[in-house]
């Protein structure tokens, strides 16, 4: 309202200003008009006064001319002379004719033509009053002339008596002398008698006016009084001015007495001609004012337009900025904003993020907002009909919807709130879709976390229950047998039996603890790999040595297969790989019933790159298998399928979890295929870096070119042939022992005997030992014969050697193992062989002097007893500080080795080691220091070595490991032989 009032005030102000401008302009115009009119009138008066004076002078001159002739007696000359004189004067003065006039109005022209001239009353003046006259007349030719006559002395010429003479001018000629070029040539000038009769007129084309007073009376708008006044003026010889309209044109009529007779000089000028100057000035002024006004107006308009445009642009920019800002904001959030026109529910605005969030193009939604219903998961009606109208002004309603993205299928939860509001007096529905997806997902995650926590809690409860069971079981045995041992200490057989069972239970308990610690270590991310070069065949042999007895104990068929040509040496953490495979194999043995079958195979698979080898290890059994549900959780910690079989099997439930984590740690994958009662197949795929150089085994090239292999398994034969191809050895294969005998003998007889014969132990028809015996019987001792077996050959070794077998090879067949095995059989190669002498380790501890740091008194006692049982002596210190002081104070050679516990009060083992190495004792840097600690992980070993120790032994003490390590560090001899080397 206020704005409108201001607008009205502004318009009123503009109107007042315009009116003032027009009023001022009008007053100014009138003022100028009046001034210019007065000036023009004054000018008109002056102009025609001048004309009048000129005309008067002209009259006077003509009269004077004629009078001078009279005075000069020119008229008395002879007619011919007179005519010549007149002609001369006529040529000079320009009159049209010369007349002798009689008092009766008769005339005789200088040319001798007599005529009557109607001079009117002028004749009386001329003849009667003897005064000069000016009179108009019409010649017989019709031509109108004006005579200027003067009385002269009566004379006679050519028989014509005259008493006056005159010169005549044509009115046309006279009129031209009166014509005034001023006023655009529109002014008419007349010489009239005082009664209005026209003598002369400057009217273009000739005079058509007879009586100007009558003319004015007939055609002008002058009233009778004005005409009478005008006539009186003329009659009185007054000069004056009158304005009148003639034929719709305004005229200014100016009159003044000529001064002779009754003649009046009259001029009639159109007012427009007088005002022409004014009009021109007025027009120019008006034009200038108009131009200024227009210019100012234009400037104001332009300024207003610019200002308006500026405001418009600013508003537009601000609007665009706000829109852009809002778009950006709405794009950066997951809330959707919609505005509907309340009247027709047409969309006014939709935030551009709708397409991103719901997959609905904005333009499509603009056409019909209900297209959103396509996205609702439950096909909900987004805005039920009639609901919007039910929302009161400034009220709101809200709904919850779950939307699914049209293209990606992503689900989102929205809380849709509709506000009914008035924006700039227009009713709008503002719809805000608040994204509640995060909140919903958080709720779901919390629920999942709750479920997981409950599951974990259940698992841990189960674990604790299992652990309680699993720990209590061996502990029960240990405690129980310890009680029995105490009671039966005097019965050596029972003591040994109880001790063996206590040891077994202790070992089981130890493995249980190791698994738990391993799992803990892995889960805390502290596990690291100790990568080193190792022999794959050796590792397989070690596995076979461990697993085979377990399998045999359950009458299970355990076999190891090598497929393809895996590298024999690889870089990796042998210990962890062993742990993985042993875990799988142990489980296979555990969960396969007696008489079952367990197959362990190794094969290279492609995809590892040039410097790597990817190996697939497969453990397949035909055991109890696993349900599908358990397969999904088999690698989860603390999980173990519960059934009648598994309940009888001890385990922590951590083995597969540890295995899975180790495989992950090594960058590999582990998979399982199983079905209840159908057995299980675990597959592990790992990549190993290949060592830079393989051992040179080319010594055989000139000695072995042909080789006979006998095995009833064709795959093994073909595998050996494939493996030996690169060695340049031609491999002949036969399926049994008899065929081997035949081929070996036949070849020998042809002089193409085999350089090596490799026989499987157990073959149909004829086993390897028998076949070897027969071959030896036929061809002698010249050819090395080896037996290839996956079984423990210790039981048949004696018989086999007697049958002529030179050596045994474990399955699977490896080329390097093969060459290593047969190399001693060639005399020239025996020098380089370094066979191991494990038997010497038996007395390696005898006479050794150990300084042990052990804060646990019981452990110290056990250690001391065990070392003394081996013939060694041990002095114990209770912490690192003490062991340091004892070593520093001891004479050089007092101790052969320091066994250092790590976790000790006062000074731990690492600090003590560093102190010893730095104490300046002569043996400070050379005395072997071995960690003996319950910290049994690889990093513990590394930490020990980093601290300056030479080896690591984990608790509980394994005397075999002690002997091996001491043998390694101090030599395998007794204390007297090795002392110098330490």
């Amino acid at each position, binding site marked *: 309202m206020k704005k409108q009032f201001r607008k009205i005030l502004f318009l009123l102000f503009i109107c007042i200003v315009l009116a003032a401008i027009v009023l001022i302009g009008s007053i100014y115009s009138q003022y100028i008009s009046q001034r210019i009119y007065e000036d023009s009138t004054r000018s008109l008066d002056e102009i025609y006064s001048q004309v009048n004076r000129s005309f008067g002078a002209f009259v006077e001159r003509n009269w004077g001319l004629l009078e001078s002739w009279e005075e000069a007696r020119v008229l008395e000359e002879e007619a011919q002379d007179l005519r010549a004189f007149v002609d001369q004067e006529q040529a000079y003065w320009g009159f049209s004719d010369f007349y002798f006039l009689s008092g009766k109005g008769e005339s005789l022209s200088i040319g001798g033509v007599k005529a009557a001239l109607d001079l009117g009353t002028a004749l009386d003046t001329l003849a009667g009053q003897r005064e000069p006259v000016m009179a108009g007349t019409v010649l017989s030719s019709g031509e109108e002339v004006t005579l200027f006559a003067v009385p002269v002395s009566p004379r006679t010429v050519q028989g014509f008596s005259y008493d006056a003479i005159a010169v005549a001018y044509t009115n046309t000629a006279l009129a031209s002398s009166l014509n005034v070029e001023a006023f655009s040539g529109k002014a008419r000038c007349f010489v009239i008698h005082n009664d209005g009769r026209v003598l002369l007129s400057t009217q273009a084309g000739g005079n058509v*006016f007879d009586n100007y007073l009558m003319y004015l009376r007939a055609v002008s708008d002058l009233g009778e009084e004005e005409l009478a006044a005008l006539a009186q003026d003329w009659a009185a010889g007054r000069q004056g001015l009158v304005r009148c309209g003639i034929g719709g044109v305004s005229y200014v009529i100016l009159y003044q007495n000529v001064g002779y007779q009754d003649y009046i000089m009259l001029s009639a000028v159109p007012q427009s001609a007088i005002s022409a100057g004014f009009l021109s000035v007025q027009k120019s002024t008006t034009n200038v004012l108009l131009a200024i006004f227009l210019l100012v107006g234009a400037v104001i308009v332009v300024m207003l337009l610019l200002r308006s445009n500026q405001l418009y642009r600013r508003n537009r920019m601000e609007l665009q900025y706000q829109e852009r800002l809002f778009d950006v904001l709405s794009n950066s959030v997951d809330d959707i904003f919609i505005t509907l026109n309340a009247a027709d529910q047409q969309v006014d605005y939709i935030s551009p993020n709708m397409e991103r969030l719901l997959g609905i193009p904005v333009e499509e939604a603009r056409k019909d907002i209900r297209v959103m219903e396509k996205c609702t998961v439950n096909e909900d009606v987004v805005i039920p009909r009639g609901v919007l109208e039910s929302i009161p002004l400034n009220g709101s309603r809200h709904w919850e919807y779950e939307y699914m993205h049209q293209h990606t299928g992503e689900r989102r939860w929205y809380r849709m709130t509709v506000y009914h509001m008035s924006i700039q007096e227009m009713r709008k529905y503002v719809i805000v879709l608040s994204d509640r997806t995060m909140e919903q997902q958080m709720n779901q995650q919390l629920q999942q976390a709750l479920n997981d926590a409950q599951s974990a809690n259940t698992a841990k409860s189960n674990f604790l229950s299992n652990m309680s069971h699993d720990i209590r079981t061996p502990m029960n045995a240990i405690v129980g047998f310890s009680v029995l041992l105490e009671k039966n200490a005097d019965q050596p057989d029972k003591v040994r039996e109880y001790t063996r069972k206590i040891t077994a239970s202790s070992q089981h308990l130890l493995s249980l603890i190791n698994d738990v610690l391993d799992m803990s270590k892995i889960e805390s991310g502290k596990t690291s790999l100790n990568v080193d070069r190792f022999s794959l065949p050796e590792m397989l042999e070690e596995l076979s040595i461990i697993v085979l007895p377990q399998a045999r104990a359950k009458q299970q068929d355990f076999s190891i297969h090598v497929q393809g040509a895996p590298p024999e040496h690889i870089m990796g953490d042998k210990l962890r790989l062993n742990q993985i495979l042993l875990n799988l194999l142990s489980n296979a043995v555990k969960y396969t019933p007696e008489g079952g079958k367990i197959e362990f195979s190794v094969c290279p698979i492609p995809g590892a790159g040039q410097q790597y080898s990817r190996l697939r290890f497969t453990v397949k059994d035909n055991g109890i298998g696993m349900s599908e549900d358990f397969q999904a959780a088999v690698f989860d910690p603390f999980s173990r399928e519960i059934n009648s079989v598994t309940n009888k099997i001890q385990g922590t439930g951590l083995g597969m979890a540890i295995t899975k984590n180790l495989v992950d740690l090594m960058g590999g994958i582990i998979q399982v295929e199983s079905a209840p009662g159908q057995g299980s197949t675990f597959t592990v795929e790992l990549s190993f870096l290949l060592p830079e150089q393989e051992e040179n085994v080319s010594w055989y090239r000139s000695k072995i070119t042909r080789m006979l292999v006998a095995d009833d398994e064709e795959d093994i034969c073909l595998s050996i042939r494939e493996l030996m191809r690169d060695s340049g050895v031609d491999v002949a294969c036969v399926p049994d022992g008899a065929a081997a005998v035949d081929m070996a003998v036949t070849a020998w007889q042809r002089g193409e005997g085999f350089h090596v014969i490799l026989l499987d132990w157990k073959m149909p028809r004829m086993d390897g030992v028998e076949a070897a015996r027969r071959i030896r019987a036929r061809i002698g001792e010249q050819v090395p014969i080896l037996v290839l077996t996956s079984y423990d050959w210790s039981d048949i070794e004696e018989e086999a050697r007697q049958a002529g077998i030179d050596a045994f090879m474990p399955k699977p067949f490896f080329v390097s193992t093969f060459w290593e095995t047969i190399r001693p059989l060639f005399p020239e190669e025996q020098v380089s062989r370094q066979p191991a002498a494990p038997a010497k380790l038996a007395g390696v501890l005898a006479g050794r002097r150990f300084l042990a740091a052990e804060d646990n008194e019981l452990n110290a006692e056990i250690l001391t007893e065990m070392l003394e049982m081996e013939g060694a002596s041990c002095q114990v210190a209770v912490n690192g500080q003490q062991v340091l002081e004892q070593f520093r104070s001891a004479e050089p050679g007092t101790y052969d080795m320091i066994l250092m516990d790590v976790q000790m009060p006062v000074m731990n083992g690492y600090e003590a080691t560093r102190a010893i190495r730095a104490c300046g004792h002569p043996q400070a840097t050379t005395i072997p220091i071995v960690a003996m600690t319950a910290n049994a992980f690889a990093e513990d070993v590394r930490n020990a070595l980093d601290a300056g120790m030479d080896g690591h032994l984990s608790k509980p003490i394994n005397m075999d490991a002690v002997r091996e390590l001491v043998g390694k560090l101090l030599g395998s001899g007794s204390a007297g032989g090795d002392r110098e080397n330490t």
Partner: protein
Amino acid sequence: MKRLYLYLCLFLAAALLLTGCGGPDSSDGVTLTILGKESDLGKPYLTRLFQLYQDTTGNHLQLISYKDADFETQAARDVAEGRAPDILLHFHNADLNRYQVDADFCYLEEQAWVSDLTDSARAYCTDSSGHLLGLPFWESSVSGCYYNKTLLSQLGLKAAGTQAEFDTLCQVLSEIGYTPICWPADGCTWMPQFALDPVFADDPDLLDRLNRGEIGYGDIPAVADMVQWVKTAKENGWFGNSYGSTGWSNIAPLLSSGQAVMAFIWDTWFYTDFTADGPYTMDDFALMPVFMGTAEEGTYEGGNLNMMMVCKSGSHVQEALDFLAFCATPENYNAAFDGISTVSCFRGQTTNIQSPMVTDAYSSVAAHERVSTAASKIIGYNAEDVMAALNAMLRGETDVAGCVKQLDDYRLEEIALQGTVAGPAG
């Protein structure tokens, strides 16, 4: 009115003819044969004259007539083929090239009555060699610019003496709201010929060259001057707002009312057609020359006189000459023209009614009168064609040059058309 007058004349002529056909009385004088147009021989003053002659002399007059359209051809053939009448009543000296004038007709300039002829009348009857070929005996009028002198006087104006003054007068009248010239757009086709009369009357050679086809209107600047003046007058409003809607019947009301001041017409029109319904009567009008751009001092068109020619091969040549003398006797022509409105052919003519307008302008008429030349002597001249061409220009359909060309085209078309005209009926 004019048509009624024409029917009356025809009726009287027929009655006279029937009387004449009664055959001459061989015992009472000779019988003279008079050959003329049907419409001419019935004129009342002729009837009076013929009767007076027969009554006075005892001779008989045998009137022979042809239809107007066939007359010229048929009469020329009769004369050429020896069937010449004693007296041939011919339309003044126009179209005499059909005859061998010197062989066929008697020269009359030596007759005693010649001095009694007015100059104007004599001019109509004289050939290019100056021989008087016939006795003018006809009613006549003066065509010129008749103006409302009373009105002009009231307006303080006066008549024009020159073309420039006339134009000025028109302009002044126009400025003060009068229609200077009454110019009917249709039905009044005579006006242009007034302008052309001085062009060809003053220069007979020009006329001959035009008729011989040596030149056209385009070669005659005065024709363009006339056309230009008409165009200027129309553009300046001198024809007033009545142009285009006025016709013959509107001239009188326009003049009588004073709305129009001037008209190009003839004096007898005031006696036959002017009805003073307005404030102005015939007495309020005066005569001045027609100014249409072709003559600075203006022009009048003289009366269209018939003359009586004596055929040399006629049966009674002397009696025929005597008949002319009888006609030229003041008592006889005054008796014949008694009460007839006409311009005098004879100086002693007193009984006719001569308009004061002509009388007052006698000297001017005498000075500036031209024989009707354009309409009567330009071969192919058709007044309606001329007015049609001018009106086309005034409607803006063409310019001055185009109008002149159109005039020429119409003239040539008319010439071509005249070549197919059939001869007079028997």
